[in-house]
């Protein structure tokens, strides 16, 4: 043996970095004024860096510190993080400090990112789902440095992430156990934490940020903005989907369409005698619009990806429903809740911007690289699922017929109004995702939910049971048959559509016994944010921008 194999280069790298950083810290404690120097000391060119940012909690102070680092020194970084949410994330690219990114969602920065890609200033490795990206943290995209956010730290460096635990455990575990450096910004340093969410020996540095980290109230939907059409589609969903399959375990996407369903549970669904029979177990953030259903006793359990601003006190006061620690506050966990949504739920229902004639749906629009988040995991059949439930088995039988090997199927539904604002049709022959893929040189068009996974489409015109279709032609006519007055809808073969209706593959509101005149906002269990506050017994404390009192 000529050379001795070195088995701990990662550990040595970490030691090297910690030594360089030590002069900017007192033990683990970093003064906010020294954070930029510390980052410069820790980071090396070519590092994979995760600046914790998902669609809710943001390590915003550390992101601001990053854009103050010297671009000559801190460069050639590879960003690996859930969401490009803050302007600083994209500033890093513009400053030439980041050359490659792997992420899952870029909502607020989607336009800027698209321009940078088109001008060849950044290479996108891939756009993932959350679970995919977390998975790759443990395979080939492990961060060398992770900048995370927590509510509090104690003197030893234990972290309390509380209700907004979100991505932190996944990021820190991957980084800390593979020779990386974990730096946490905290709102407060205390002697004793309410509980330990991240143990101190996984954390290298703690800095108390001058201002509390930002949390976006992303899942708050003001009931006053729910339209009559959304009430109608919610009625169709409850009667034509939830009741039909007896769906008890589910996940809802973000949107007014699904908020309307949540607000119809204590009223419409209760009148239909569905309490206890549907919507009992959820993988869902603490949606304020779920409060009335919880209070009505509809809901038995909710596990959350993250928290929601203003819901902390309410959630803590309902420990039978939410996942609450011994300290009395919730713990969320995006990775676990995503896994739960994928494997343990029978239904995903959400909204989209475009659906094509095959049933592929996408939220991609030209000039914006928005990505996916978690919906593709929620909205995909779980091929690895091995436990049965009535809804899953029924869907499987409908989709596959009587096959030799019995198998179930995840129910995946999209609910859309046939036209969006400004008369943009939701049904198209050609998804904008194709054009975006071409412009952004992506290998795959960014499709949120693939045709083969989609089982139902609900519009104001009715519901189509795609899983009952037996040919591509039938499927296309079923989609056209609920596409209303869009060009796709007007292009329907009327006889074929009537035939599908006779066979129950398309159901109109009247076929379901729904009186469209009943579809008005009076049916909502809460019609304003204030109603939600009252429903919560004053425990829900909505963010200022949602208040009108």
């Amino acid at each position, binding site marked *: 043996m000529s050379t001795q194999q070195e088995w701990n280069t990662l550990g040595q790298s970490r030691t090297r970095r910690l030594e360089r950083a030590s002069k900017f810290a007192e033990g683990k404690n970093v003064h906010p004024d020294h954070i930029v120097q510390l980052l410069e000391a820790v980071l090396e060119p070519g590092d994979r860096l995760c600046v914790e940012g998902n669609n809710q909690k943001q390590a915003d102070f550390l992101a601001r510190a990053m854009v103050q680092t010297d671009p000559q020194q801190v460069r050639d970084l590879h960003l690996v993080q859930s969401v490009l949410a803050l302007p600083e994330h994209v500033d890093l690219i513009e400053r030439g400090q980041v050359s490659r990114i792997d992420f899952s969602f870029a909502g607020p920065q989607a336009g800027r990112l698209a321009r940078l890609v088109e001008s060849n200033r950044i290479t996108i490795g891939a756009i993932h789902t959350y679970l995919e990206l977390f998975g790759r943290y443990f395979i080939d995209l492990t961060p060398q440095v992770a900048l995370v956010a927590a509510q509090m730290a104690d003197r030893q460096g234990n972290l309390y992430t509380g209700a907004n635990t979100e991505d932190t455990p996944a990021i820190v575990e991957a980084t800390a156990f593979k020779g990386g450096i974990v730096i946490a910004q905290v709102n407060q340093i205390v002697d004793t934490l309410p509980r330990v969410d991240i143990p101190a020996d996984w954390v290298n540095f703690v800095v108390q940020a001058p201002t509390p980290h930002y949390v976006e109230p992303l899942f708050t939907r003001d009931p006053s903005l729910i339209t009559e*059409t959304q009430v109608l589609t919610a009625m169709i969903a409850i009667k034509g989907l939830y009741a039909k399959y007896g769906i008890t375990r589910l996940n809802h996407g973000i949107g007014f369409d699904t908020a309307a369903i949540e607000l119809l549970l204590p009223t419409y669904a209760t009148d239909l005698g569905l309490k206890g029979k549907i919507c009992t177990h959820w993988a869902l953030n603490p949606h304020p619009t779920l409060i009335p259903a919880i209070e009505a006793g509809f809901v038995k359990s909710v596990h959350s990806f993250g928290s929601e601003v203003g819901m902390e006190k309410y959630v803590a006061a309902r420990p039978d429903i939410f996942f609450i620690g011994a300290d009395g506050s919730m713990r969320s966990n995006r990775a676990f809740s995503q896994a739960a949504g994928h494997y343990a739920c029978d239904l995903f229902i959400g909204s989209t911007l475009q659906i094509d004639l095959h049933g592929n749906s996408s939220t991609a629009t030209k000039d914006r690289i928005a990505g996916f988040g978690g919906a593709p995991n929620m909205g995909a059949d779980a091929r690895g699922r091995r436990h049965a439930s009535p809804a899953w088995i029924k869907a499987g039988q409908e989709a596959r017929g009587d096959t030799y090997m019995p198998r179930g199927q995840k129910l995946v539904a999209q609910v859309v109004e*046939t*036209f*969006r604002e400004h008369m943009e049709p939701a049904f198209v022959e050609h998804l904008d995702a194709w054009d975006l893929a071409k412009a952004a040189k992506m290998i795959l068009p960014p499709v949120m939910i693939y045709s083969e996974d989609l089982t139902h489409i609900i519009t*104001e*015109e009715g519901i189509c049971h795609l899983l009952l279709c037996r040919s591509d032609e039938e499927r296309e006519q079923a989609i056209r048959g609920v596409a*209303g*007055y869009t060009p796709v809808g007007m292009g329907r073969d009327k006889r074929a559509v009537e035939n599908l209706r006779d066979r129950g593959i398309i159901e109109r509101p009247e076929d379901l016994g729904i009186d469209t*005149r009943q579809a008005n906002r009076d049916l909502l269990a809460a019609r304003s944010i204030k109603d939600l506050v009252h429903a919560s017994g004053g425990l829900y404390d909505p963010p200022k921008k949602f208040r009108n009192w």
Partner: protein
Amino acid sequence: MERFEITLPSLHVSALQQSALCGVVSSGNLEVMIEANSTPESCHFEVNTSADGFQDIWRAVLADFSERHKVGGLNISINDAGATPAVVSLRLTQAYEESQEGSDA
């Protein structure tokens, strides 16, 4: 703004109890006014819309409505501020129902 009139055949309305006005002219919404006219076998529509270029869709929506309801003998006037067909259909139905009810309903 675009303005057009359409007359469509429809079965004679059973009885017009009262003229009716439904909806409000606000973004994405419309108002529908129903009055009696003197042509029992057809319905006359007058549409004022802020969204130009959607006459074909309007025709399709109104044709379906005239087929589904007995609206012969009615004038239906519409002021639209860019409502989607879903909202238009809903509002037409509401106005129709209201015109069929007694004034105290």
